[in-house]
């Protein structure tokens, strides 16, 4: 494993009475593509701005490459930021935009020209150096913003929802572009987004945040398949989250029906949260299921059908490539390893409520 490049130690920050970050600890390894994921207001942007030097934490430290940079001015830090709305300098040409940082560092003209050329090639925008930002499309502007940041050869690139303003198609293209760039440059990316799909697609590590707390840190697979709490489960993809009772090891009671599962160690007859992904629910003939229900809604989603099934007074969300018309009686079956059991949050602070995007 590569070394820790950035270590965030006990960082807290509040605006007035509003606590945005509470005693947050996190480290970032060299060459990692780390994504801070969470709903708006979860503190992810604040954390990024603290890293960039635009905000000072109320308490705690930021260690960069072994040095404390907590109160270092932004212009003295070895990291560069790609801002949410690009923040290009509109009265300068693309070349002048890209050269901005290099000129300040006093690089030679030929070095700067080389770098401009290299950066534009890297973001596939060769020949654009004499144009003005306003004449470029959103995606092109975004790539220029990245080019402007990377020519400075930062150790870390901070990206603040850089794709937020783009349309879906462009966003997907840019996701691949970013992955390619990251691999070519070999630098650390810290990426902020509220789009879980974006996070799952690009990241090495995802940090799910809510209300100033880190909810879970893990690989995309971990986060998706094994959410540690109801918030993460709900935030990442669609989920059925139940107040369930762990009857004993490997058996859980969900809305009155007993499902075999694979989890152990939660005790007996303990209240837990149980998560079942919609695509993990199999709809079978009524008599073959663990539970009987009736289809109440049906929507065609392209890849699959989305259905709601009323069973034991609970609406179950189901994704399936098979279609069951509204009113059909069905049976519900879930494979044991598709049920994710989670501890109930212990404190109210930690509890994840009110998800807003």
């Amino acid at each position: 494993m590569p070394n820790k490049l950035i270590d965030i130690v006990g960082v807290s920050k509040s605006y007035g009475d509003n606590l945005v970050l509470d005693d947050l600890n996190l480290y970032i390894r060299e060459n990692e593509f780390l994504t801070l994921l969470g709903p708006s207001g979860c503190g992810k942007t604040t954390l990024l701005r603290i890293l960039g030097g635009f905000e000072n934490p109320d308490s705690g430290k930021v260690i960069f490459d072994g040095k404390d940079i907590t109160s270092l001015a932004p212009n003295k830090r070895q990291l560069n930021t790609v801002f949410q709305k690009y923040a290009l300098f509109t009265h300068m040409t693309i070349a002048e935009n890209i050269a901005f940082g290099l000129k300040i560092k006093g690089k030679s003209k030929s070095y700067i020209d080389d770098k401009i050329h290299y950066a534009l090639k890297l973001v596939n925008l060769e020949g654009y150096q004499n144009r003005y930002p306003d004449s470029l499309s959103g995606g092109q502007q975004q790539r220029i913003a990245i080019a402007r940041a990377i020519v400075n050869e930062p150790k870390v690139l901070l990206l603040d929802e850089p794709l937020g303003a783009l349309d879906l198609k462009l966003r997907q293209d840019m996701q691949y572009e970013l992955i390619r760039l990251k691999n070519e440059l070999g630098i650390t990316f810290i990426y902020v987004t509220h789009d879980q799909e974006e996070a799952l697609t690009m990241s090495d590590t995802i940090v799910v945040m809510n209300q100033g707390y880190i909810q879970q840190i893990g690989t995309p697979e971990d986060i998706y398949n094994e959410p540690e709490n109801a918030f993460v489960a709900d935030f990442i993809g669609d989920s059925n989250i139940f107040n369930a009772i762990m009857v004993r090891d490997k058996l859980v009671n969900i809305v009155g029906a007993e499902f075999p599962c694979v989890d152990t160690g939660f005790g007996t007859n303990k209240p837990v949260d149980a998560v079942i992904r919609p695509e993990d629910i199999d709809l079978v003939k009524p008599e073959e299921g663990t539970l009987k229900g009736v289809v109440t809604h049906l929507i065609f989603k392209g890849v699959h059908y989305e259905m709601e099934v009323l069973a034991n007074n609970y609406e179950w969300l189901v994704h399936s490539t098979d279609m069951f018309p509204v009113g059909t009686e069905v049976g519900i079956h879930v494979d044991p390893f598709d049920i994710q059991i989670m501890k109930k949050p212990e404190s109210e602070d930690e509890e994840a409520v009110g998800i807003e995007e």
Partner: protein
Amino acid sequence: MKKKLQNLYLLLIVIFLYAPIMTLMVLSFNSSRTRAKWGGFTGKWYVSLFQDEAIMSTLYNTLIIALLSALIATVIGTLASIGIQSMNRKFRTFMLGVTNIPMLNADIVTGVSMMLLFIAFRMTMGFTTILIAHITFNIPYVILSVMPKLKQTNRRTYEAALDLGASPIYAFFKVVFPDILPGILSGFLLAFTMSLDDFVITHFTKGPGIDTLSTKIYSEVRKGIRPEIYALSTLMFVTVLFLLFLVNLKPEKEVHEKNGTIRKPSRARHTMRLVVTRVVPALLVIVITAGGFFYNSKTKISGSEKVIVYNWGEYLDPDVLDIFEEETGIQVVYEEYETNEIMYPKVQSGAISYDVVCPSDYMIQRMIENDLLDEINWDNVPNIKNIGQTYMDQSKAFDPENKYSVPYCWGTVGILYNKTMVDEPIDSWSVLWDPKYKDSILMQDSVRDAFGVTLKYLGYSLNSTDLDELNEAKNLLIKQKPLVQAYVVDQVRDKMIGNEAAIGVIYSGEAIYTQKENPNLEYVIPKEGSNIWIDSWVIPKNAEHKENAEKFINFLCRPDIALKNFEYITYSTPNEAARELIEDESIRNSKIAFPDASELSGCETFKFLGDKNDAVYNELWREVKSK
């Protein structure tokens, strides 16, 4: 049809907006001094404009003050905007409110309070005080135009610059500044224009010896605005038009750049742009500043000996001041006012200690009553012997013992009539009530003059405070209303010259001039008597150079000097010795300029009747006007 209406609308707009300016421009080429007559095309006013040092130096004063105040206000206003922008919302709203107050506040309040402040800090009124005042009222305009630009500016671009290694100052100038530059420039232009425009605040904060165009022009209203001013206004309008043209050249170019064509602007274009945006303004600044220093150095106060003179506008031949300075070595600091009522508070406040002032009769009475005047030491004014005894006697009406005042100019109120338009000899105020002259009568639009004429016609004193007499006069004035073509002040002169009316009530000083322009006009002091007014030199109590003041007054009483002034002002002079020196016999013996003593016997000066009676007069006049 719709198209036609549109064009008509456009035409109306153009007429209403530009007709006044066109009139002014046409008049600036009129070789006749009066606006009622076209005397042929001439460029002489433009020539004499540039030869007129007084006008040119006020022009430079105006431009320097406008330029400096706009520049300083732009710097302060921009910094303030940045500060306000970074405040939190509550404080920001509060600060914006506070900075907007000077803009919403009535000019007169701002002006008076600035004046009081300067007095409190014992500052000498002059260039500096005007400049400070202008900066003060200009700052809100700059903030007003910079703030919106600053709000539009993406704060992230500033942060992006920091992020790329720029220091905060470098980031501001490289990134934020170009974004808000249009706002700063328009703020600067707005401030510049506001400063050029300002009259009220300048009026209260200026001191002796300095004038801006607006105060200078306004001080001339009593004598009529000179055609040189038309020429100057025309030039200023054309300049503004030209600047507008330059400013409008730019956007087109920007659009062009933003088309996204992959090329640098051509070299010629680049040079052109540089000339327009850098060289032209820089040259303007240099010319203005250099001109300012040039004129400043010419009017530089050299010695410590000086006399501060406060006089009506256009009420003294400028050459006379030069002669006085040459002969005595005393520097004359000269300031002008436009009405007694404007002069009075400035003297009373003590903001500036004037040495010599020239108020009218009733105002002298008021100043004596309020103990504002100092007695004149007649030993220092031997030339008083040149002033006719008649005038010293008339002066007793307001200066009972001849202790405070030296008559300077005088005149009467009478009837000016057009010989070709009346068929009888006119010698009585009664013609003003003669239905024959319906719609050919011009009355003075001022309370005391209108009532004075009527009271005299009725055989009463024009200083009457008897309510019955006043009501009688009021009713007579109401009866007269249908006959009157117009109630006017200055226009009597021009309308009479232009044969627009048969009979007008006018001051004798104007009569001589109108007769020169239109020989058919005749002036008469009606047999019932009339108003005689006298403007006299007085020395305020707080004068700092009393001896110089007396020297100055004595100098003005010298026959040759009085003659020069008479020729310049054309108002009657009380200086008998000067009258003897008048070469033109027709003027020396003019019944208008120098009526017989018998004619003056029925004449009275106006007296200050007290605030209460003033109110009564005003109320009655209001009734007349509103009936």
